[in-house]
């Protein structure tokens, strides 16, 4: 039981820095997980700290809304790499992100979906969903007493990649 915990912790804490650098698109970004009790990490808590590019070490509650979202995604993706579920479902994770960070997160997901997982995202921002392979549009049928949802599917792979256009 302790060995498995140690194994998970070591895997995630070595990979998180790399993922955070990729998500921030900046090698000076740093992320690290540290046990409060080095001997027996499962007894106490685990601290998490991110250093956004160009800034120094400061407590996590000091981050802005968008910076917290990027830090959260770094942790989510690194935990996933230890215990890989085949797909993600992410509901409006881009709400607090500016366009630069939207682009970075979308590119990261784009790269990872070709190699390691499937991703289904719900988004209101074109800057985010223009990077996907397919769109499922939901609309509500008029008239009824309550919402009746209908869907339309649109395959984006038939178009030249927007990425090269958007870069």
């Amino acid at each position, binding site marked *: 039981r302790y060995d498995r915990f140690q*194994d998970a912790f070591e895997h995630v804490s070595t990979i998180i820095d790399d993922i955070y650098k990729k998500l921030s698109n900046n090698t000076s970004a740093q992320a690290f997980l540290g046990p409060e009790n080095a001997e027996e990490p499962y007894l106490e808590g685990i601290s998490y700290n991110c250093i956004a590019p160009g800034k120094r070490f400061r407590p996590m509650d000091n981050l802005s809304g968008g910076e917290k979202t990027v830090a959260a995604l770094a942790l989510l993706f690194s935990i996933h790499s230890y215990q890989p579920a085949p797909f993600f479902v992410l509901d409006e994770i881009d709400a607090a992100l500016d366009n630069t960070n939207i682009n970075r997160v979308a590119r990261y997901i784009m790269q990872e979906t070709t190699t390691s997982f499937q991703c289904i995202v719900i988004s209101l921002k074109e800057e985010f969903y223009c990077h996907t392979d397919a769109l499922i549009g939901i609309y509500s049928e008029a008239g009824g007493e309550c919402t009746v949802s209908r869907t339309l599917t649109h395959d984006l792979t038939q178009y030249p990649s927007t990425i090269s256009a958007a870069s």
Partner: protein
Amino acid sequence: GFLKRLELENFKSYKGFQVIGPFKRFTAIIGPNGAGKSNLMDAISFVLGEKTQHLRVRNLKDLIHGAPIGKPVASRAKVTAVYGEEGDEEGEGREEDIHFTRIIVGSGTEYRINGKIVSPSDYQHKLETLGILIKAKNFLVFQGAVESIAMKTPKERTHLFEEIS
């Protein structure tokens, strides 16, 4: 493997029988406010065994189409997730496809794999062999919940590691 498509029957705002998909490697669900995007995520969470409090309802019956206005259209609601292996993105009905189905019947639910009724623990076990662990909470992020992943307390983080190990 990956999720190929969903089949919904009277689940939340999805009236009648509807097939949603095909899902590609990177798929976006888009549409106006209140159209039913998060309801689709609820359908995926439901079919994988998620508890009702994460589905934004008080009890299972509220998941049936029409229930919030007191006019449920049926006594049952059903979701099937069709899970397939790589390479046969468009291949319909390949024998390796696994159909996971969860059905609301009365105040309980029924679980089926490829049409055959199974116990909840067998259902969960089959999902775990594919790496789908609802308990580990490492692949579903609900609306408005992303920032809180980074702001857990140190103790909660330890608990997270316990779940995945």
